[in-house]
């Protein structure tokens, strides 16, 4: 799905988290929102996911205005920084949650839900953990379960907030490839937030560098590396 961000701004009280920003994300792209903390990248992601409402501006999905679409109706597969798995549910129930939450008329049958969950468990390469609880998983496994749970609702896009932030360096490298693979398999427009420039450059097709609530530069990784548009970008990507 093609995503259009049109002059979006966000005020929290008197502080501006986002100055009006505009951005066009092509369908099927893997996009990194890169910046230091406080740059507004997470706020922008949460606005896309329907978790915050912008102070001004519009969000368009495939040319349709989606600004007022509630978070429930938005079908954005959102992966939280802490993963936010439901601790009292098994992995299976976590992944099935979005399907079970649908109104009866559009809810798949039990057998269909089971089939979809086991397919997703295969996709994240953890076919045998359905009966476990989140507290029994490693950090990397939790992240993949969170991803599977977001994919279960057949989302129109995939939004990830610091997806590798809580992991150690070795697991991080592995899971980067995992995200790339899942993106390539599903073909979903994918936006992830990161403060790690190496991660953004290595993984994304398109990198959006942000600072202090503004977009500093948009471009392919190699272009940004070759031609940093502002002193901030130059400093940030060489840091």
């Amino acid at each position, binding site marked *: 799905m093609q995503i259009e961000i049109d002059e979006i701004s966000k005020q929290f009280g008197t502080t501006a988290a986002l100055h009006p920003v505009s951005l066009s994300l092509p369908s099927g792209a893997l996009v990194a929102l890169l910046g230091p903390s406080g740059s507004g990248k997470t706020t922008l992601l949460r606005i896309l996911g329907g*978790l915050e409402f912008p102070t001004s501006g519009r969000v368009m999905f495939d040319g349709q205005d989606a600004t007022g679409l509630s978070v*429930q109706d938005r079908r*954005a597969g959102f992966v939280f920084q802490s993963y*936010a798995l*439901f601790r009292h549910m098994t992995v299976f129930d976590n992944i099935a949650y979005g399907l*079970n*939450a649908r109104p009866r008329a559009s809810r798949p049958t039990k057998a269909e839900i089971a089939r979809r969950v086991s397919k997703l468990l295969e996709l994240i390469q953890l076919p045998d953990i359905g009966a476990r609880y989140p507290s029994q998983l490693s950090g990397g496994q939790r992240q993949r379960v969170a991803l599977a749970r977001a994919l279960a609702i057949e989302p129109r896009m995939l939004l990830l907030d610091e997806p590798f932030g809580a992991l150690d360096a070795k697991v991080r490298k592995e899971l980067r490839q995992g995200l790339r693979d899942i993106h390539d398999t599903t073909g979903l427009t994918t936006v992830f937030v990161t403060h790690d420039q190496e991660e953004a450059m290595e993984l994304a097709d398109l990198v959006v560098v942000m600072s202090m609530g503004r977009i500093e530069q948009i471009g392919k990784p190699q272009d940004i590396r070759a031609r940093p548009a502002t002193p901030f970008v130059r400093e940030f990507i060489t840091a």
Partner: protein
Amino acid sequence: MGKPLIHRSPMPGLGLSMGITLTMLSLVVLLPIGALLLKGASYGLAGIWETVNRDRVWAALFLSFHLSLLAALFNLVFGLLLAWVLVRYRFPGRRILDAAVDLPFALPTAVAGISLTALYAPNGFFGQIAAEIGWKIAYTQWGIFIALVFVGLPFVTRTVQPVVEEIEREVEEASASLGASRLHTIRHVILPMLSPAALTGFALALARAVGEYGSVIFIAGNIPLVTEIAPLLIIIQLEEFNYDAAAAIGIAMLLISFAMLLAINLIQVWSRRRIGYV
């Protein structure tokens, strides 16, 4: 083999603190409870059964237990609501409400008892209103129910409140982003997270209500077989110097208390094992 009973430690005061703890615990709590159990053992289970197995005793035990259960259920629902309102919403008077939740802990039971009676007696403030529709509260089982709700009020709220505070926003957001309505989120995500704490509070409120005496006797009416609670029966037996009967009923109540204490502990163990927190 095996672990030592007490690990060696550089900390001072082992002898003194252990001595004070065990001596006072024995003198104040364990020996008196032991005396009751010993008394029970002296005339055996059959003897206890003979005393307890009378209509008046069964009626009192049943009354105490089933009204306590109803009161604890009311407090479970109202306590969850209060915990949610006090933690999640900001409104004028919130601090006062929060402090008021503890009043049943702080107000002596005899004071609560006569005050509730004054309010719900047929000529009292609420009693008059109820009488208009032919509803008698004081000196009926309704009166006992209200007194038991009063004494059990803080338990669920106070056990649930810290858990509500710890719910991560992201978990609720995750539920919403997966398409769940707010009601679905509350039912399937929030309430299950609160339920171990709520159950603990429920059991505590129940245990408190079953043994409650002071706030109930004034409003109860104390009619044998109808509004006579189990603790009152013990007092009546004692006033007639019928120590054996008092002890038998006392043991029955003690066993109920132990069973509930066990239940509380099992709830906590189960919850810790399954989801890693209480």
